[in-house]
């Protein structure tokens, strides 16, 4: 991290603060993650591949990806609606609603997990409404999706809200002058401006869903091949003292998260470039 230009530094403490930052980061984050890669590398390539592709593990990836995807899609629509209503309209209790949006970030996941399970269990407030229809919510992939909708709620709202706030009224004004109807000006003028932030919020919610454990583990029922998410499978392997197998599955899960993060970075850079080229 050494660099030129030291003489320009008027302020003190560069070496001390950067040194502490790098040391602390290495001890708490980088070295432990490196050990994960190291341990999963103790398996031979064939063993590794077999571990991460057994039918039970594959079923867990599929479940984790599908439930996270559906939850993120639901959050895309709900988040856009909430951001729109909070930025554009006035109504009583608006400030409180705005504050409540962040609750899923502040509420411990275990608390969310047991509350949601109680609501959507066959004898719960909402679960009992659907029970006669033969629809099981808790202990099914649908229940997992609902928990992930709860967890991912703030992401899209908080990425879209500031963009919507900064959106210039001029453009809309121009669209109206040109005779565009409200719905048309939303689709043609406003929505394209929101696409990068919608995508970012969607990807953040999706990534969060794939790794989520606490809010899901109570409502999922944890049946192998059916309602067993990948993070739970890692814990199961660990409890059976299969450390290397647990590490191998964890590496796959981490890779999925990193790909999503790269995607988010890419979207943000693309939208920045688009903004500056205008």
């Amino acid at each position: 991290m050494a660099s030129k230009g030291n003489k320009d530094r008027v302020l003190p403490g560069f070496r001390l603060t950067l040194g502490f930052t790098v040391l602390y980061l290495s001890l708490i984050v980088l070295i432990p993650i490196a050990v994960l890669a190291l341990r999963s590398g103790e398996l031979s390539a064939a063993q590794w591949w077999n571990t991460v592709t057994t039918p039970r593990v594959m079923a867990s990836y599929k479940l984790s990806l599908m439930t996270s995807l559906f939850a993120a899609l639901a959050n895309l629509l709900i988040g856009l609606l909430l951001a729109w209503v909070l930025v554009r309209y006035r109504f009583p209790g608006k400030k409180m609603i705005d504050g409540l949006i962040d609750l899923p970030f502040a509420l411990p996941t275990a608390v969310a997990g047991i509350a949601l399970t109680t609501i959507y269990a066959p004898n719960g407030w909402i679960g009992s409404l659907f029970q006669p229809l033969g629809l099981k919510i808790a202990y099914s992939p649908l229940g997992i999706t609902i928990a992930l909708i709860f967890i991912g709620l703030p992401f899209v709202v908080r990425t879209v809200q500031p963009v919507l706030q900064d959106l210039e009224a001029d453009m809309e004004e121009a669209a109206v002058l040109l005779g565009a109807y409200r719905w048309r000006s939303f689709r043609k003028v406003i929505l394209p401006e929101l696409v990068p932030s919608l995508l970012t919020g969607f990807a953040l919610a999706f990534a969060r869903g794939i790794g989520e454990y606490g809010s899901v583990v109570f409502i999922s029922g944890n049946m192998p091949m059916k309602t067993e998410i990948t993070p739970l499978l890692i814990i199961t392997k660990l409890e059976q003292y299969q450390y290397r197998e647990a590490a191998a599955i964890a590496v796959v899960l981490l890779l999925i998260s990193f790909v999503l993060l790269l995607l988010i970075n890419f979207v943000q850079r693309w939208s920045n470039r688009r903004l500056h080229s205008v």
Partner: protein
Amino acid sequence: MAGIATNPRAGESHADIPKHLTEPRVIRWILIGAALLFVGLIVVLPLITVLSQAFSKGWEAYLTALKEPDALAALRLTLLTAVIAVPLNSLFGLAAAWAITKFQFRGKNVLVTLIDLPFAVSPVISGLIYVLLFGAQGLLGPWLQEHNIHIIFATPGIVLATMFVTFPFVARELIPFMEAQGVEDEEAAVSLGARGWRVFRKVTLPNIKWGLLYGMILCNARAMGEFGAVSVVSGHIRGETNTLPLHIEILYNEYQFAAAFAVASLLMLLAVVTLIVKSVLESRMSGKRYSA
């Protein structure tokens, strides 16, 4: 990732929108109604459930569940964990933000990305990495056993896992905050002859105190509520290595629902207080930012 939620301008009301740029009244009402319905269903209903279940067996049972020795032990461990993890991560956040916002150096972007890394890691993996490092079969396991040092299934492991999941909170709040404030104030202080620590204490700290507090509040909420990572390293020894969230899990799995929700209501209170303090700080910070 959670940092995305911290938009200090959220909730600021937009100037009145001219009539021809808004929707007919009926559509507005439908949209507002749908939004309220979703917030009620997704966010408010779970809160009501926690309270109604917690008091389902009356006040007596509620208080008994909170005063039970295992619950008190869990509360103590949760507080201890937060008291260690939050200050350490705050110190780190201050150092990282100072280095990153006051100086130019190569690899800065990489450093910022690496600081955010724990947000991208599943909580379960955050616990797993320490088991792989310090567990009985871990890399340092044999050495630790020889010296009779317990990290996994003991308090140090719980603290470490909590430090990992809350690692970025303070840093990622402070970095944009200090970036926006620039270096002029500090440089002026230095040119007037002030030195290191004094510049920080007298010039920087008063400028960033609300931002720092904001990051610490969020860090603390997560530290006290973390479940997945702590669950992996704790070993679930009653009265010894259970934090409040783990205690809730045990009660729930033993079908002691009222007791589980009673303890859960404590953590819910923490969440609500966190949100209130957060919104107070947000209005303070945005006021400051615009008056500056």
